[in-house]
């Protein structure tokens, strides 16, 4: 039997175990809640995890479409990127599937001499982890972009005596010239260069 058939055969177990291990990266009470509450609006993180991992596993064992995979990773990583995880812990969830497959299928892989196929599978997982890193960075950059836009608006309030956006738009690029004249703002700009 080929590894892909084995993965298909053990799909439910592998997928459930993957979700369980990801949920267990949260504190105990949270992990239980994420797994047990099945309303997608009352438990957005748990239900996103369930849906995305189910589809992601299907992608891995079937078409392996990189765009769809990136989209599914986005669903999960976008959440982890703003939670209490280090960057490594945020994307480490991808590698979990390697351990799960080895734990579950070690005997059959050995018996069926499927080591070559396992290498290929794991190589795919490694590449998905790299995609996860891209997604993580995209999310973090977005957070900082939103933060930066927010901060950029504050000095205008001080410099312009709080003029409204309509006024700012009418004044065109005036604010860019102002930047250089304002110490506080120059500091902000410098720290972001």
């Amino acid at each position, binding site marked *: 039997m080929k590894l892909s058939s084995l993965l298909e055969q053990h799909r439910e177990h592998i997928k459930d175990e993957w979700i369980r291990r990801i949920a267990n990266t949260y*504190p105990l009470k949270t992990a239980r*809640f994420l797994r047990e509450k099945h309303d997608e609006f*009352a438990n957005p993180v748990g239900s996103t995890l369930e849906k995305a991992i189910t589809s992601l596993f299907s992608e891995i064992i079937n078409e392996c479409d990189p765009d769809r995979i990136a989209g599914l990773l986005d669903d999960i990583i976008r959440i982890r990127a*703003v*939670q209490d995880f280090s960057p490594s*812990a945020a994307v480490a969830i991808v590698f979990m599937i390697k351990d799960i497959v080895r734990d579950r299928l070690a005997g059959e892989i050995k018996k069926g001499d499927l080591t070559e196929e396992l290498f290929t599978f794991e190589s795919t997982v490694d590449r998905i982890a790299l995609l996860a890193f891209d997604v993580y960075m995209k999310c973090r950059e977005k957070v900082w972009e939103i*933060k930066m836009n*927010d901060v950029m608006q504050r000095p205008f309030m001080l410099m312009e005596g709080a003029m409204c*956006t309509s006024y700012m738009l*009418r004044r065109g690029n005036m604010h860019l010239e102002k930047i250089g004249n304002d110490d506080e703002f120059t500091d902000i700009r410098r720290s972001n260069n």
Partner: protein
Amino acid sequence: MAKQLTPQETMRIDLNPPKEGWMDIPVKIKEGIYSYATKPEKVEDVGMPNPHKWAVTDEDWGLPENWKEVFLEGFRERLEKHRSFKIFMDICVRCGACADKCHFFLGSGDPKNMPVVRAELLRSIYRGELTTAGRILGRLAGGRKLTRQVLKEIWYYMFQCTECRRCSLFCPYGIDTAEVTIIGRELLNLFGLNINWIQEPVSNCYKFGNHLGLQPHTFKQNIEFMLMDIEEFVGIKIEPTFNRKGAEILFITPSGDVFAEPGIYTLMGYLMLFEHIGLDYTWSTYASEGGNFGFFTSLEMAQRLNAKMYHEAKRLGVKWILGGECGHMWRVVHQYMNTFNEPVDSLEEPVSPITGTKFENAKSLKMVHISEFTADLIKHGKLKLEPSRNDHLKVTFHDSCNPSRAMGLLDEPRYVLKNVCNNFYEMPENTIREQTFCCGSGSGLNAGENMELRMRGGLPRANAVKYVSEKHGVNVLANVCAIDRATLSASMEYWCPDVAVAGVSELVANALIMEGENDRSLNLRGEEIPGRGTQDEEAQEDV
């Protein structure tokens, strides 16, 4: 031969959360989750205690020597003063009904964001320091001692609650965790431990009449710039009045709408609506703020900032007050304003001068919500509307926490929206009306530096928006709150980038047929309306 280490041993990536109970996990203050410390001069401005320079990252937060006595005395005083607080400290049985109802818990996964645990941060001090059983039995009675580290933990989590009151909806005992947070913040303010994002608006409001510190001429000037936009986009000239004595109605709205996108479009909507019906009203550059960040500081501060609203109404001699789209403003107005101030004999029971409707619900308060007012106008056929101008928009409605849970304003905005937009879709039942999810940044947490916290808190709401966006193609999230307009814009940018945020009154004005208007090919944002714009005509000519 030495044992070869596994990769897991050499390169440790921590995927295992702590197993201890919450009391044994020391607080870890993380950047992106907290807002910056208040500036001492902003504390001084309003005469609050212990103004001093400090930073959240400092080991020493500059507490006075007797801080513990002050805290516990403050705690005792509030237990006596607010019977509800005493009850909330005593009766929680930790059933967990509230645990998974908080947007911050759902978005962060941090158990200390379960409302029960957040309240327990204070309750444990109450038991451990202020009850006999707790003083003797300590941990056995769920008590603990107040330490500097514990105070930091309380601070960290009191500013991770938006006082939205969703949790209280599910509490079988009716415990209002928001009130616990309110008292928790009051206690922290005994030491000048506010966040600047709250304290500076408080100081501004005290000195200038509004959170943004807009001086009277700037306030007026900003509105004049919006009038220029209306003239350009709609083709009509409007000339509202400011501080006019003898006007029938005083209009008060949050100052955020005078300053920032997309709130300014909502304000343009008010201007057009009042022009459309020929309302005898005035703006005030003194009561130039509907919101009340004092409410996120202490109840006394909320009272001081609120006083100007009735004061100004009396000074101008208006009959009643019309209030704009705001969230916590309406909680303060609806639940506190009457008792904050002397009986308001100078004002009359509000009656719509256009329809004759008596707003009996506002008989005592003398203040009417703009959505109630607009819904009444529509119901009586007083508005000329062309809803098809909003046909390119697929709209859903976000119930803001305070108007929905604190004043029961659920149907009026929906009625208005359904009359000015042809495409309206509700989000799932357990995310709207009384059960609405918070925007994630209310109660003064709408700073920039705590954006990760805001994104966490905004997740449950965004999750429901994403659902209707994918199912029905929803592209506009309408609401009646100035903080929502600002914060949901950021939240949508992260979670649902295809969805724009708009005030209900902006959509009303887009649909209003104004006397003497131009071809209305532009909306209030100066964007071409699909199917009406010049570009579309050019494209058709090309074909």
